């Protein structure tokens, strides 16, 4: 029995095959499904495959830098044997800061979003310390412009209510 499965993964990354993922067709579930999705071009070299897959992800994650795309692509690699390991990922260029020449011991982090200083982290009241939630003061509404006041036949005081 064939079941058509609309795999989100296949739709985003293309349909895997035995070339990009050796052993794909021997996976238990693969035998019983008829996967749909754009084909993962099989007759190309693996480098080309990577580029093609890159572009689909690239469209989805436009603001991400090329280093970021490379990392994301390496993490979402079909073949588990070729997927990046934790150690390799930590060494990835995406996480590397560069030394600014001329400025001693000054490191620049290339990738956005830049890390925030821990002092800028949001804080929450500690229940254990008996702190209470800060009550926001009710703020008055903004005054209405004079011409609009005339139009709506408001008196000056009405606009402050």
């Amino acid at each position, binding site marked *: 029995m064939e079941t058509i499965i609309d795999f989100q993964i296949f739709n985003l990354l293309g349909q895997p095959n035995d070339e990009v993922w050796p052993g794909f067709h021997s996976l238990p579930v*693969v035998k019983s499904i008829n996967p749909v999705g754009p084909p993962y071009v099989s007759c190309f070299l693996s480098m080309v495959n990577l580029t093609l897959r890159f572009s689909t992800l690239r469209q989805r*994650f436009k603001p991400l830098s090329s280093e970021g795309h490379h990392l*994301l692509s390496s993490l979402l690699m079909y073949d588990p044997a070729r997927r990046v390991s934790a150690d390799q990922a930590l060494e990835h260029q995406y996480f590397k800061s560069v030394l600014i020449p001329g400025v001693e011991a000054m490191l620049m982090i290339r990738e956005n979003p830049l890390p925030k200083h821990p002092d800028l982290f949001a804080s929450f009241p500690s229940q254990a310390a008996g702190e209470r939630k800060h009550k926001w003061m009710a703020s008055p509404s903004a005054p209405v412009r004079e011409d609009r006041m005339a139009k709506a036949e408001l008196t000056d005081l009405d606009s402050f209510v």
Partner: protein
Amino acid sequence: MPRSPELLLGAREYTTAVDMWSVGCIFAELMQKEPLFTGRGEIDQINKVSLIWHHGDNN
């Protein structure tokens, strides 16, 4: 935790690479501020497929 394709496709042997797939999904989620793959439907579908598959096994 987002499940890797080899798990979804019923691999009996897997490695720590399954966690790296999840890291990739979380990385993507941080970038686009919404989940990359909305797991629920996918897992449901896979469960259904597994049922069909096991049924086929018995025959």
